């Protein structure tokens, strides 16, 4: 049972198992263990970002592709729900239509980007996706009658989803299912081919795998994962806007989470997202204390200023790329 659920990909380390279980239990019981709006928001954000980061890891860690368009797909999910709910009424039909439209659009764009530009070198693909994503961001901010422009869209959901507890478990359940689905993908024969492409694309091609096809498929799957994450985030926030989904800052956040958690390990996404979102929400408080304690010293209080939390995660990120390519998960598995 467990083998099938995890697709045979166990944490393979006692410490990692404990941490993962703690995260799972923490998320599953969040409304009861950590009451309060703020902590429930944090829990929902962790759930959504685990999925978002895991789908990005499929690209970066398993296939060796750097894409900057992941937030675009995240945004398509969010705007799919947002536009449908804001313009078509608050029924289940509208929600379903928005979700289907978002998934279809993401699939089409991912397919087009993949076929057109995955033939070229990694660097070129990174730049093209950056350009496409920024174009999409401009589009979203300019088509304000449809997207609400910079202000974004606030909307109402079907009756049942307005209940916070129900919404939370929908988000958590869907994210968990999608995560297990991604785990299935990377441990399938298809996932093995992706790994072989990452390790040596020339050899994989020589063995007889069409690497463009596999890369494009991975790109589409990752895009769908990000879209689902966007849909869930919109359902949770009941709002969609450029800053919550499309901004380049979120792309940077995703990169930090993938690399710190561990590239090429789906569980890294869980750790990365959890640590990052917790740091985003609680590290500031800690740093405020530290910065206050060092008052009067030169430079140090400025370095530990609560708004500089990203600095330290950035340093951690660089150290991870150099010394721990498989991130925290890799360290725990040693």
């Amino acid at each position, binding site marked *: 049972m467990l083998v099938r659920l995890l697709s045979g990909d166990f944490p393979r380390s006692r410490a990692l198992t404990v941490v993962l279980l703690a995260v799972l239990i923490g998320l599953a019981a969040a409304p009861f263990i950590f009451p309060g709006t703020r902590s429930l928001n944090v829990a929902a954000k962790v759930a959504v970002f685990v999925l978002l980061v895991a789908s990005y890891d499929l690209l970066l860690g398993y296939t060796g592709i750097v894409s900057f368009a992941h937030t675009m797909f995240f945004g398509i999910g969010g705007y799919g729900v947002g536009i449908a709910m804001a313009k078509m009424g608050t029924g289940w039909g509208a929600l379903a239509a928005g979700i289907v439209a978002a998934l279809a659009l993401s699939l089409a764009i991912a397919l087009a980007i993949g076929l057109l530009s995955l033939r070229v070198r990694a660097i070129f693909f990174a730049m*093209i996706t950056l350009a496409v994503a920024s174009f999409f961001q*401009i589009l979203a901010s300019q088509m304000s009658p449809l997207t609400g422009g910079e202000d974004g869209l606030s909307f109402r959901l079907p009756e049942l989803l307005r209940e916070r507890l129900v919404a939370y478990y929908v988000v958590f359940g869907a994210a968990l299912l999608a995560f297990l689905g991604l785990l299935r993908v990377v441990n399938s024969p298809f996932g093995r081919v992706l790994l072989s492409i990452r390790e040596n694309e020339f050899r994989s091609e020589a063995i007889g795998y069409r690497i463009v096809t596999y890369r494009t498929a991975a790109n589409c799957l990752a895009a769908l994962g990000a879209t689902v994450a966007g849909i869930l985030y919109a359902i949770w926030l009941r709002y969609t806007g450029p800053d919550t989904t499309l901004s380049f800052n979120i792309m940077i956040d995703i990169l930090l989470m993938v690399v710190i958690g561990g590239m090429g390990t789906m569980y890294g996404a869980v750790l990365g997202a959890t640590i990052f979102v917790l740091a985003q929400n609680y590290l500031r408080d800690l740093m405020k204390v530290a910065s206050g304690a060092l008052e009067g010293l030169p430079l140090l209080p400025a370095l530990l200023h609560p708004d500089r939390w990203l600095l330290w995660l*950035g340093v951690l990120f660089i150290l991870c790329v150099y010394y721990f390519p498989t991130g925290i998960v890799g360290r725990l598995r040693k």
Partner: protein
Amino acid sequence: MKRDWLPLALVPVIALVSLPLVGSLPTWVTLTVAGLAMGMMIFMMASGLTLVFGLMDVLNFAHGIFIAVGAYGAASVLTRMSAQMEAQSLASDLSAMVPAVLAAVGLAAVLGWFFERVLIRPVYGDHLRQILITMGGLIVFEQLIHVVWGPDIIPLPRPGTITGSFIVGEAAIERYRVAAVIVGLVVFAAMWLLLNRTRIGLLVRAGVENPEMVESLGYRVRRLFVGVFVAGSGLAGLGGAMWAMYQEQVNAQMGAQVLVMIFIVVIIGGLGSVGGCFLGALLVGLLANYTGYLAPKLALGSNILLMVAVLLWRPRGLFPIGRA
């Protein structure tokens, strides 16, 4: 090698096609000067990136940091020199501008040297880790800018002699834009002479074409790399300082904001090509201003549409460099 002149015609063609669309000659002149000025500044910011890519096969996602640091360096000097700036004379303006520009270039160059040495050196030849490392550098140094200069946007005064505009015929032309065009042309001419008429330039160009060969002839390509990286960073600093004066403010995100535009310019020009970068920058600058006037909604996306059009015509950019 036969010179390829066709892409060069693009600039006058775009300018001439837009003339009847804009409709009035004075407006068109104003827009064209604005576009050329913007293009020159973009060129200064982007040229280092394309050179570094051509020579070292490194695409530096943190290039925007040098731009931002240059802008902050210039701002630090200029805000302390407000006395010289207010005296309406060229000499006193220059006495503030020259140190400001030197500070911008120097700071960015030193940072570039550090960056190459500490961050990029261990990851040569590994594109995936290069992209990740330079992204990490972008995050960390953007935060460090906040630490050093504070989190607020700094308003940047412009010296008196290059503020305001003058009238030619019926067209109002901003002085600053003319100054930017002149500086840009000087930089481009200097770069062109350096690359095409000196021994160092010869080695750099040879290094772009075939680094192993240059190495085997007894030159240290590594040392060239460092020199080009530092020079490219310094240029980005200069471009950043000019860009900041154009916007009349400095903020830490400005590097990341212009990054996409710079990438587009570099792609349009052909990765690694300085001439292509210059041409691409002018095209992007002109188009941004024309569309900003004709169809404001399109203006922000115009450079991306331009990139798509150019890549459909020449998939490797206007002036592709030998090594693919």
